[in-house]
């Protein structure tokens, strides 16, 4: 202790100088903004580097808690992704395809509604297509479904508020009323169940004019599809030995492997026609 005092006494002048200079520098740094900024910057560098080292150790001990927080944050952010939300399409394509009725003008028969295909299958025995559009967006049961190139895809069988199930042509129970282009004969298009993209046209008499490569259209005789939508092209003509008909194999015009968007066709006169048919049946049966 005595040595310290002796040291201070012998160097008192110099120490006093240092004290006074230190005090002056404090005054400078505290009361002048420029010097304050420079001094703060320098001090921040020094203390910052020390703090960084301490923080490295401290961070290691906080890893578990940090991890949990990050996972929770991740979950919250993932849920905010736009791709998690799905808005069913409510757009409507207007096609003028209506029957003139009196001289008062025309009334609409057909309306086309676009829908996105959410699920598709081609390899089962009974294939279904699910559309991302439902009854809340004006899709109804028994609407016909076509692809963007006017090729027939199927018929809507079930409808829920936001989704619809379509029985595609590749289904054992699917029967579309069809008409040949050249000959004009009408028949039924079914699916054999063997190959996708290959359909079977039945009920064409052997006296009809058929040629390979001919196109087969919808006949318009049902309320599901209007006249003139393509079903397929004739691939192979075989004569059925047991009946008086041809067995005609078609190559479907709709590509069932790659369906992205389809149009559902709504028939506004369907109810009236069906009621009329039922009344007529009742009258005949009674």
């Amino acid at each position, binding site marked *: 202790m005595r040595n310290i005092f002796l040291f201070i006494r012998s160097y*008192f*002048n*110099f120490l*006093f*100088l240092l004290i*006074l*200079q230190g005090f*002056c*520098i*404090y*005054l*400078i*740094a505290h*009361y*002048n903004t*420029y*010097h304050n900024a*420079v*001094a703060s910057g320098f001090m921040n560098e020094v203390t910052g580097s020390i703090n960084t080292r301490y923080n490295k150790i401290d961070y290691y001990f906080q890893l578990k808690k940090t991890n949990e927080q990050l996972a929770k944050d991740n979950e919250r952010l993932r849920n905010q992704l736009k791709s998690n939300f799905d808005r069913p399409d409510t757009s409507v394509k207007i096609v003028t395809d209506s029957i003139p009725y009196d001289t008062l003008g025309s009334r609409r028969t057909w309306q086309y509604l676009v829908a996105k295909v959410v699920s598709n299958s081609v390899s089962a025995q009974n294939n279904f297509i699910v559309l991302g559009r439902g009854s809340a967006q004006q899709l109804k049961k028994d609407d016909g479904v076509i692809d963007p190139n006017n090729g027939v895809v199927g018929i809507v069988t079930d409808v829920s508020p936001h989704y619809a199930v379509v029985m595609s042509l590749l289904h054992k129970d699917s029967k579309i009323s069809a008409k040949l282009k050249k000959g004009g004969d009408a028949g039924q298009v079914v699916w054999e169940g063997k190959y996708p993209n290959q359909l079977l046209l039945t009920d064409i008499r052997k006296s009809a004019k058929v040629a390979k490569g001919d196109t087969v259209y919808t006949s318009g005789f049902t309320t599901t599809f209007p006249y003139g939508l393509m079903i397929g092209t004739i691939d192979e003509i075989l004569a059925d030995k047991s009946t008086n008909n041809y067995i005609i194999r078609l190559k479907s015009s709709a590509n069932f492997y790659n369906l992205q968007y389809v149009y559902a066709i709504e028939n506004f006169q369907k109810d009236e026609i069906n009621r009329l048919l039922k009344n007529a049946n009742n009258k005949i049966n009674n």
Partner: protein
Amino acid sequence: MSTLVKNIIRFVILILVQVFVLDRIHVHYMVTPYIYYLFILWMPFKLNRTIQMLIAFALGFALDSFRHHPGFHAAACVLMAYFRPFLINILIPQEGADNNYEEPSAKSMGGFMPYMLYAAVLTLVHHSWLFFLEAWEFGNFWYFIVKTLLSTAISLLLIMIVELIFSRKQQFRTNTV
């Protein structure tokens, strides 16, 4: 009049002249004339070193109070007052002028040249430390050097003028050992 009163009057007058006359003159942006530290140059020989530094601090602080940037001049004056005793010991003749005369002047330091040297070195120390603190970095080194040298020259000129105008009577005292 006694030493204390003389010194107090000197202190006050020098500060007032510095603030109200010299600070209002803008000679050049690189040159700032200072004359108040003449008080430190003229402090009596016999003062305690600590007291010298304290008085210098008070002088510098008083000047700083008039500007709104505290601390610069105080630091520079304290440094000046620290070096003053060493310089005096080197420069004065062997006869011990600090026992015979009261305060440094041309006469007491044995000639004009030692006195000018003493004044010049202390002025240089004061100015360089002041400008260094103001910038807080050497920055553009040439700017710093030129500013220091020019200011020193101007201040020395002022000191010489003041010496000529206000000559102090330096009595030779004997029997003081």
